[in-house]
């Protein structure tokens, strides 16, 4: 399977997921519609999974090399996290939001297939490559949801309808997302030792990954110390996601990244 079939895969998955979201909101009127949501959601996931596996097979390497390929994984994990969050916390909008994000990210791949099957250079052929990338993309997807939760909390605070549930949700996502960021950093470091001779080289991508990690660290500690300081904590969380985006996409455009070894 190659990228040529992706527009179809995208249309089918996006369609199935949209029905799933519609079902979630319909379930308010007709509780039985919820079953439909589960079915359509998993059908959409299945289609995307088959595509990813097929692509992996046809490329003969893990599809984690280019920005387009990382967006593919993002579009895979985002709905999954949204779904689990929805099941756990009964928050319909989280499912809707994460599916929307997934559609946007996968849609970028349809419109702008910067997805050419480039060969996997020797330094990337490591057992650490797959865990490193998957763990990071998973963390990014989770933390994206936490950012929107932060914005929601700020909005709720402003309109005087603040709900504790929102805050708890943000905390949980950050704890799990941060744990994954830590795994990603360490896997990356160990891999760097095997591939380039040292676990830390102050490469711009490393620097920004560290910055991202630190901002979430700050959030955790602001919350741990004085949990009644909600507003600064939520601003930190929203800001953290901007740092994360710089780390993911922006680094390549910074003057500091002229000779980075990272390609995505």
């Amino acid at each position, binding site marked *: 399977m190659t990228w040529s079939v992706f527009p179809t895969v995208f249309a089918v998955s996006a369609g199935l997921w949209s029905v799933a979201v519609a079902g979630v909101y319909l379930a308010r009127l007709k509780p039985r519609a919820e079953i439909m949501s589960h079915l359509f959601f998993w059908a959409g996931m299945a289609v995307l999974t088959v595509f990813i596996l097929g692509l992996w097979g046809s490329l003969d390497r893990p599809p984690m090399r280019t920005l387009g390929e990382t967006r593919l994984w993002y579009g895979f994990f985002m709905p999954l996290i949204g779904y689990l969050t929805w099941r756990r916390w009964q928050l319909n909008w989280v499912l809707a939001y994460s599916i929307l994000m997934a559609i946007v990210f996968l849609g970028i791949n349809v419109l702008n297939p910067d997805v*050419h099957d*480039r*060969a*996997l*250079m*020797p*330094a990337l*052929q490591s057992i650490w490559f797959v865990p490193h990338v998957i763990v990071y993309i998973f963390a990014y997807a989770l933390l994206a949801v936490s950012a929107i939760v932060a914005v929601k*909390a700020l909005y709720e*605070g*402003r*309109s*005087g309808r*603040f709900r*504790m549930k929102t*805050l*708890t949700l943000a*905390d949980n996502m950050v*704890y799990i997302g*941060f*744990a*994954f960021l*830590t*795994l990603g950093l*360490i896997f990356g470091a*160990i891999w760097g*030792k*095997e*591939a*380039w*001779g*040292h*676990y830390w080289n*102050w490469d*711009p991508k490393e*620097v*920004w990954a*560290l*910055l991202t990690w*630190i*901002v979430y*660290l*700050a959030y955790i*500690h*602001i*919350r*741990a*110390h*004085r*949990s*009644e*300081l*909600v*507003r600064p904590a*939520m601003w930190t969380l929203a800001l953290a996601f901007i740092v994360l985006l710089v780390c993911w996409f922006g680094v390549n455009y*910074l*003057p*500091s*990244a*002229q000779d980075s070894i990272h390609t995505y």
Partner: protein
Amino acid sequence: MQQMEPVTSNGIRIRNTSRKPVWVSPWGYPEAFLIAAALLLVGFALEWFSPGDGLSAPSWPWNGVIGAMLLLIPLALHLSLPKNPVVRWLSQVPASMGAIAAVTFTVLLMGLFLQGQPSGIGWIDRIGLTSMAKSRPFLLSISWFLFVLAMTTIRRSIPFRGRNIGFLLNHLGLWIVIAGGILGSGDLQRVSMTLSDGQAVWYGTDRDGRTVELPLALELQRFHMEEYPPKMGVLNHETGSLVIRGEQDLVEVERGRTGHMSGWDYEILQFYAESARIEDRFEPIHDVGAAPAANVRAVHTERGDTVVGWITCGSFNMKHQFLELEKGRAMAMTVPQSKRYMSLARLYTQSGDNRMIDIEVNHPYSAEGWKLYQFSYDDRFGKWSPISIIEAVRDPWLPVVYTGFIMMLLGAVYLFWLGKEIGTELTQKADGVNGSPHAQDSPGASDRESGSTETAGRSAVIKQETEVS
């Protein structure tokens, strides 16, 4: 401005009307940020007045001594002045946030300015912005960070409680990684060895060009590279640029492949991965300088005109060759990308070993306390490179850093696992579900304050300082 107040039914909501002046006990955030800012200022000033090559960690035993001091000073402080408010403040979140902010600031500069090369703008280079990792402001902020982190970790480890294990794994693990990494850099050696056929090399050259003798020798038998098949595409050489439009327009060259490209139907009649030009043909050979070549037939989809001919990307001693399709357009082949490369070498060690090894990218070889990495080759020659460059690395502190990594990995698993519980606990506190001073005495909360006898006192402080906006 509308206030966000999760707090509903208890005293925490009280707004603090009597703001505490700075530097009056108990310290909080203002003091933390003032100290952090002062450290940075001093650091940049020192950098300005003592320019040089930047700092580097001392080597053994001095880095060991510094490491011991970094542990013993906080320990002594904690044991001798346990009740001192400043000592206690050092182990609490505000001080940490100040230290974290200072480190973040220096790392942010590192992330914005190109490191390692002077910018040419005098003051930027002079205050260390282009070599932050070796600058005084970075050294000062990271030292302060380690100090505060040690104070925090020590307070929670004495007396030791099983409940704090997750906290210790994360905080002590991080401390070990950072301290071990920075101090260990004083003993880190990285040298490159340039190998060429049949010569034993027993020394390397470090980054400053100094020669370092090694306890081992390497003799290159053969440099070996495998390549991906080359690709081909239509090239617009009217513009003078040899740029093919986008990589998605390239196809992998493979015998028998047919397809359509820029108005032409093509078929690859023949493909040799290694070949040489013989008059106007190509023949397979396996020899230095051989290059991939393909015989291609292209038929214009509408006009039907046909061209047949050979294309090659060439090599260091063979010129590349296009297949002219029409004016300004040609079929061309790209230089293949490397798939894997390695050095087959004979290793001699001081302890008398003598064996054949191979060193491949991502598969370093360890001997005599050194790790040997396939680093580079002469890329003008590609797979026919007569030399191979090996990097030899010795990092005696690696086990220390890896111990920290393992602790942090376990700490992350703990965090992941406990995520919900901690979240809930915090929430209850903020929710004011049990926001009375007793909240601090609930099992979770009092454990967070272990080592302290003033839990209720702390909650009073929270009340007094609380200001939500």
